[in-house]
């Protein structure tokens, strides 16, 4: 018996507007392996996975499972073959409980699994993972990590033999991510296969048995995980542009005297009525980048939303450019010229059913009754060019873009918009390394060249260190610091994140 479990043979897929997402790609997935699927934003990774999962159908090519040619026309069929996908965005029904969600998916497959059995399965597994999940909790109350765990549990209940992870682990906190990777290692040791898509190359090298690289819809090559060198993989992914990847500290700003973003004893209530932000005093001067490090869920989201006027402050004051904007609504904040890269880009950052031009117009032409489209298209094409957004045209709907390119559209429009301040929460999520490096550079340039005050909130400590002029740590709603960004004190910062 060959150990090639699944073979995707000469798969091609074209989308509207002449976009060639995949061009004769042949990849095999072997039993008991972790296969990392890498490539720059828009390379065709998600498309390939979706074809295997039956979401899209290939224009050409075929899929073999155990040497037999099969047609996978829907996820239901894929699941019958033991293929389960977990994506970046949990596909759960918010108003149902965890058990109900899992039971729903099982209905078609093994009808006799009882609710009680599922619930004890959840309890057992969540203990094993070390991520607490109450089976009877409604899904909307779960954290991101809990939701992703539920997705993994679903895959297990469905008796998956192949798990496809499309950036599913990317946004997990480091500790929990390790637990998930450990699970994957065990799963593959027992003969299962996993395909992992990620933009964190070191992580891929660490976990993968083999690495397949796509570029502009073509397979560049497949290399062994153990022997692959990071520079070679990057070169396969990006070609010449790989040289642009840098994690070196960017030049420091010369902050002016004027304080642009200021909070005084700020308290903000979270979604469950808890004090998510507890007495935060923060000052960001013009031309300065202040970083806030911390593990997800420590009040960063509530803090940035309150700063933008999207969430009420229960106590304290917020001053932007000297104006008291506390609880005045986002309108007042935007008025000052504040750019905002939100933590949930698909909800607050962009409207995917509208075109890139319309999304830009919504923000840039807020105040005029008539829209000056030639202005808008000028901005659009300059953003598309500068940020190398892979998009058929400025009038294409955002939803046809790849995940990373959607993020580039969000980020570029906000960075270019900000005049006084930029509030950026995980600005490089979903971006490939080249794009991420470019975004970090342009954030810094905005501060240095235009005197914009930047508040950078990120769960990626390297990113914080690369860009920031001073660093805070947020933990349990409290802000610590500021600390200078020299590596000497890094252990102190890391310690504050986890206490």
């Amino acid at each position, binding site marked *: 018996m060959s150990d090639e479990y699944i073979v995707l043979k000469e798969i091609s897929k074209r989308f509207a507007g002449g976009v060639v997402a995949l061009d004769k790609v042949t990849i095999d997935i072997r039993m008991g392996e972790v296969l990392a699927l890498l490539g720059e934003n828009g390379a065709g990774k998600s498309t390939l996975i979706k074809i295997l999962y039956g979401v899209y159908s290939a224009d050409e090519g075929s899929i073999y499972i155990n040497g037999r040619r099969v047609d996978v026309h829907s996820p239901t069929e894929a699941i019958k073959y033991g293929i389960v996908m977990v994506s970046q965005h949990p596909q759960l029904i918010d108003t149902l409980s965890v058990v109900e969600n899992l039971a729903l998916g099982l209905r078609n497959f093994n009808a006799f699994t009882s609710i009680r059995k599922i619930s004890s399965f959840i309890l057992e597994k969540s203990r094993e993972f070390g991520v607490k999940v109450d089976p009877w909790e409604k899904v909307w109350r779960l954290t991101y990590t809990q939701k992703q765990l539920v997705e993994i549990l679903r895959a297990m209940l469905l008796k998956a033999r192949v798990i496809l992870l499309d950036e599913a682990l990317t946004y997990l906190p480091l500790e929990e991510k390790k637990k998930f990777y450990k699970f994957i290692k065990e799963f593959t040791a027992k003969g299962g296969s996993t395909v992992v898509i990620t933009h964190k190359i070191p992580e891929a090298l660490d976990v993968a048995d083999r690495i397949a690289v796509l570029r502009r819809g073509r397979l560049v090559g497949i290399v062994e995980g153990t022997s692959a060198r990071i520079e070679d993989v990057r070169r396969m992914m990006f070609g010449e542009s790989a040289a642009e990847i840098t994690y070196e500290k960017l030049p420091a700003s010369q902050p002016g005297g004027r304080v642009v973003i200021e909070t005084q004893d700020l308290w903000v209530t979270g979604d469950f009525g808890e004090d998510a932000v507890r007495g935060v005093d923060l000052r960001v001067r013009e031309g300065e980048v202040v970083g806030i490090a911390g593990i997800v869920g420590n009040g960063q989201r509530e803090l940035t939303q309150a700063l933008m006027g999207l969430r009420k402050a229960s106590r304290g004051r917020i001053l932007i450019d000297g104006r008291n904007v506390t609880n005045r609504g986002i309108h007042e904040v*935007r008025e000052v010229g504040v750019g905002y890269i939100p933590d949930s880009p698909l909800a607050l950052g962009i409207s995917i059913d509208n075109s890139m031009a319309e999304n830009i117009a*919504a923000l840039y032409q807020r105040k005029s009754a008539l829209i000056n489209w030639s202005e808008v298209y000028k901005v659009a094409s300059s953003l598309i060019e500068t940020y190398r957004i892979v998009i058929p045209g400025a009038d294409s709907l955002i939803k046809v873009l790849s995940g990373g390119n959607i993020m580039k559209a969000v980020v570029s429009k906000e960075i270019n918009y900000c005049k006084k301040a930029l509030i950026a929460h995980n600005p490089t999520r979903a971006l490939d390394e080249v794009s991420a490096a470019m975004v970090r550079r342009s954030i810094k340039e905005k501060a240095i060249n235009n005197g914009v005050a930047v508040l950078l909130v990120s769960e990626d400590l390297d990113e914080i260190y690369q860009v920031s002029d001073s660093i805070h740590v947020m933990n349990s709603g409290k802000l610590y610091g500021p600390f200078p960004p020299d590596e000497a004190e890094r252990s102190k910062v890391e310690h504050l994140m986890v206490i």
Partner: protein
Amino acid sequence: MRFIVVRRTKPHQYIKPLIIVLSLLTGMILVAILLVLIGAHPVTTLVTIAYSFITPQVVKDMLLLTMLGCALLISFKGAVWNVGAEGQLYVAIIPIVWITLYAVPWSASSPPHQQVLVILASITVAALFGAAWGAIAGALRAYVGIDEVPVTLIMNYVAYYLVNLLILGPFRGRYVYGYIRTDDLPDAYKLSINIVMQRTGNAFLDGFLEFIRAIVYYAYWVLAAILVALLTWVVFNYTSIGLRIKILGSNPEFLKAVGVDARKTILTALALSGSLVGIASAIYYLGDLTRLTYPIQSQTASYGYLAILVAWLSMLELPLIPLSAYVVSSLRNAGRNMQIFGLGGLESTLILLGSILLTYSTLRFLTEYEVRVVK
């Protein structure tokens, strides 16, 4: 060989109009089969239905429904469901009755420019009244959080009763012995062009000439329908409010995040929608209705409700509004003609409508999916 359904990744250019036409044909054939089964002559049946698509009668309904369809599109695009066109239509007529009969009545000594001014004023005021009626529901949805669907629906009845009260009271006609209705609109204020055509004796030619007559008669309506459609197009493509409404419909959270007041947008969408209904209403009253009869709820032609169908059938695409307006008005006429020709009563009309809508709802999935044959 078997059929499989896969998600469409390259949109089909003509699929939407095709679906509308296809459901129409299927519906007609289904009804014809049904009627034949219960004993009607197949040819008579098909001819009657087919005839309804080319009678001059259709011109008027189609023009009016195009305007109303555009009006509803403005709110529907924002996922704001204005089902209150019927009420907005009649409320907007109230000030026109007052202006044309009481405030500035026409007399032999009236200066000629009064005619134009009164007509223009009527249209303007009707737009304002329609807007206000829509804005009430808008304010309730935006600031109190009450769903606009029941509100706009209930306000249709409120409008009926308001109009009834006026007809019974202050607006009751002086020259309409025996009827409870308002006096007829003075001829000078009528918005229609009447031409007389000689009959030629050739049935085909006469039919054609009748069509021309209808189009000339409703020339102002053609103009108004074009203007309203143009206005809607401009709103959606060149104005901030149009863009805001579209984003309100696709991602209201993002709308808020750019600093736009989503509640104001909801209010404006309903007001704007109501104002276009008001304009259509003025054209309808000045060009065709010319008086209000008690009780209005049993006199109404229900254009306000048909318009919902038009907007829905168009899949919220402006260019398809005239096509679906045409389909809906033809169906309305087919129903009427089937009754006239003794092909069953109301039920056959309803069957016709039902089967078309059924095929339509079934075929609609083709916009998102395609069917492929595999060996």
